[in-house]
């Protein structure tokens, strides 16, 4: 209560001063590497570098979760929905929103401390909404990509702009929505815009100067061995897509960052880009210091269904056939769940987690065994899943104690059309479209998967597809949302639904975070353009 009265009474600048007194307010890369060890912090998109989104907190349990009640609601007062994971540093939440907005919010009361807004150019080209997936924090700075393809650094205490770097030219379709990843002395980001014929990349920037340290092209060009998978003449690789719009993971031991890459462009008509089209629809393992690829694995060679592999790579150490293995787990938009050796890049397990009609299986070499009749054409071909995929940008979670991977699954199919479309800078260049078959009934589900076998342990179905991420906790809970605004809690071992609350809007990208504040465990849920904080009824 003390803090609440203080914040209401004081102006924003004074709030920042009082917050400074609560903690150092300066985050080191070592503290990010320690992940969720400090229960009062959430310092990076996936909770920690493994992106497991599995909290060690145990105050909210299967036995008492039905006593969760809202504590406060923050309304942005803007249009557009949250897709961000809020960060928490010393009692203050830092969250980005729609249309290049961002806020610092008192985590005790839900009251705004500062707001940042960057104007959006009127000639912006954007396929899918001016969304953003969150901040990175390093030192006393926040880092945010913008829909007009810039990277900005903000002062954590005031929200004022410290630097502004142009990543690429928004006028021809480049954009950025990813939450940056702070690793050691670098801010790692990716570029989006593949629907406009861009050439994707992953960049590392100096957090103090904004100077670029390295770039990895997600579409191989001349001089790169991967260029052999593109037409050797013409400009196909210059327009080859490979967006990055979901944050990757980091393995400090190997000093490797892992990012999933987007689909090749144009999306559906692929005759002018013969070959596998590396490194699109792939998982790439990059040296964090140099950006050089140690290995890559391509989930969908020569994709024709808009199946970006921009899902979250989840790192874990598992025992498989009696052997300790360092793995990366990946539920892909193409409908397959993968467990991959993260040292070698070799596939250990690959199994569909939704209905898939395009590939019979993933063969022993790691290459999918294709089924006939799935090449989009002018008359349309039906394939499952739809362009939204078996899952998408929503974050999964992993409970190492029960060895369970939780993913929001989408059961969908689409009729895919393709036709040749001339490339024109700044014009959407999908070369096709999709329609939902008229007899198709889509639905969603939360599914629990054993990453050693790929087998499903349990599922909970929703009447419509959901875009919510997952959060699990050490007390045996897993949180997820349906497609219609309900936040739900489940027993993580059985899938039994224990609690729900109708927030009034679909929950996207992230289910939210959990943290301790003043001895209480909070569950923070971004829903529509609001944040809702829950805690146990006192």
């Amino acid at each position, binding site marked *: 209560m003390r803090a609440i009265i203080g914040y209401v009474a004081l102006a924003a600048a004074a709030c920042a001063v009082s917050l400074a007194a609560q903690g150092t307010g300066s985050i080191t890369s070592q503290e990010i590497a320690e992940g969720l060890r400090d229960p009062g912090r959430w310092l990076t998109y996936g909770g920690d570098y493994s992106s497991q989104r599995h909290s060690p907190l145990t105050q909210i349990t299967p036995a008492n979760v039905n006593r969760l009640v809202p504590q406060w609601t923050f309304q942005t007062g803007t249009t557009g929905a949250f897709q961000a994971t809020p960060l928490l540093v010393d009692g203050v939440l830092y969250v980005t929103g729609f249309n290049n907005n961002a806020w610092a919010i008192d985590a005790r009361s839900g009251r705004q401390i500062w707001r940042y807004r960057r104007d959006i150019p009127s000639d912006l080209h954007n396929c899918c909404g001016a969304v953003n997936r969150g901040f990175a924090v390093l030192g006393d700075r926040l880092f945010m990509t913008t829909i007009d393809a810039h990277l900005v650094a903000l002062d954590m205490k005031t929200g004022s702009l410290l630097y502004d770097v142009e990543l690429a030219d928004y006028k021809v379709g480049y954009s950025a929505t990813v939450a940056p990843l702070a690793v050691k002395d670098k801010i790692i980001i990716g570029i989006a815009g593949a629907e406009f014929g861009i050439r994707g990349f992953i960049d590392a920037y100096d957090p103090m100067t904004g100077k670029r340290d390295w770039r990895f092209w997600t579409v191989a060009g001349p001089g790169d061995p991967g260029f052999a998978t593109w037409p050797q003449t013409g400009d196909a690789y210059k327009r080859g897509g490979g967006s990055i719009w979901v944050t990757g993971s980091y393995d400090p031991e190997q000093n490797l960052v892992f990012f999933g890459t987007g689909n090749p462009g144009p999306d559906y008509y692929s005759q002018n880009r013969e070959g596998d089209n590396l490194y699109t629809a792939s998982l790439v393992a990059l040296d964090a210091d140099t950006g050089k690829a140690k290995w890559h694995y391509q989930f969908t060679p020569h994709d024709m269904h808009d199946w970006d592999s921009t899902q979250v790579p989840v790192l874990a150490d598992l025992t498989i056939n009696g052997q300790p293995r360092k793995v990366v787990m990946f539920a892909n938009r193409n409908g397959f769940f993968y467990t991959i050796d993260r040292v070698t890049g070799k596939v250990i397990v690959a199994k569909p987690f939704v209905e898939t009609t395009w590939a019979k299986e993933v063969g022993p070499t790691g290459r999918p065994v294709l089924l006939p009749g799935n090449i989009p054409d002018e008359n349309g071909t039906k394939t499952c899943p739809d362009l939204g995929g078996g899952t998408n940008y929503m974050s999964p979670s992993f409970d190492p104690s029960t060895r369970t991977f939780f993913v929001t699954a989408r059961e969908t199919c689409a009729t895919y059309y393709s*036709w*040749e479309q001339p490339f024109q800078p700044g014009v959407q260049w999908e*070369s096709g479209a999709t329609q939902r078959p008229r007899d198709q009934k889509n639905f969603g589900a939360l599914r629990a998967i054993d990453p050693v076998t790929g087998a499903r342990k349990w599922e909970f179905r929703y009447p419509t597809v959901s875009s919510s991420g997952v959060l699990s906790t050490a007390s045996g809970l897993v949180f997820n949302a349906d497609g219609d605004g309900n936040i739900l809690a489940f027993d993580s071992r059985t899938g039994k639904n224990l609690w729900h609350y109708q927030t009034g809007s679909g929950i996207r990208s992230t289910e939210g975070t959990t943290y301790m504040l003043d001895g209480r465990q909070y569950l923070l849920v971004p829903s529509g353009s609001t944040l809702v904080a829950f805690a146990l009824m006192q």
Partner: protein
Amino acid sequence: MKSWRSILVPGLFCVFTSGLLVAQQAPPAIPDPFPAMNPHAGDREAIRNGMSLYRSRCGDCHGLDANGYRGPDLMALIAGGATDERLFQTVRKGVPGTEMPASNMPDDQIFLVLAYLRNIGTVAASDAPAGNAAHGAQLFAAQCSSCHRVAGKGGRLGPDLTRVGSARSHAALVREIRNPGEVIAPNYETVTVVTRDGQRIRGAKKNEDTFSIQFMDQRERIQGYLKADLQDVIYEPASLMPAFGPERLPDADLNDVIGYLGTLRGVDVNIPVQPAQE
């Protein structure tokens, strides 16, 4: 059993699609002055781009060949003399009371779509000549109005048809009368709930989530239930509207009904400013 009466029901369609939509911003204005000629008219490459834009943004409702599916036949509109300015305005502002939304597409992209439509718009329109609208109105009053409302009169279990003439193609109307179960609008799917005491209530679903369901029963009462309070929820593939096959509605009568429906283009609901009382 817990039920709610007279609740506000948000459209399920909005819930389904909101994840894909950009924020609802005020659409840009119509170009002023409107160019005398589409800047892309006759440009082969532009027409190709316009086809892509059309198919991905418009084709689902208006058909990939623009001959209309659920939405109106655009070839008929063009053959009927619709100007570029009128078509542009319709795309930009949408059509209130129908599924046609306002578009935030850049002006140039709308011109690309129009260039494509003009290019294919030289073929004959698919809409058949209308029947006897006066007779159709009588048939409608006798067989349809208990469930469908027109200009404030009639039932509310089925969709309001006040503007159906500008919202549906001729082919779509034939399909929806002969075989109403083929495509059911999101807010009119048939559902039957079975209460704890065994009572079965049938109606048109208005909304649903994992834990609750909202519908209009056949007596036009809005009902809301928690699923935990129900024995069962039965989703029916058939429409609440009976199929009007040729035995029930001969082809000539069907044509007359469609002729009448084609005249339904909306009513002015604006109440004029009333003089202040002395």
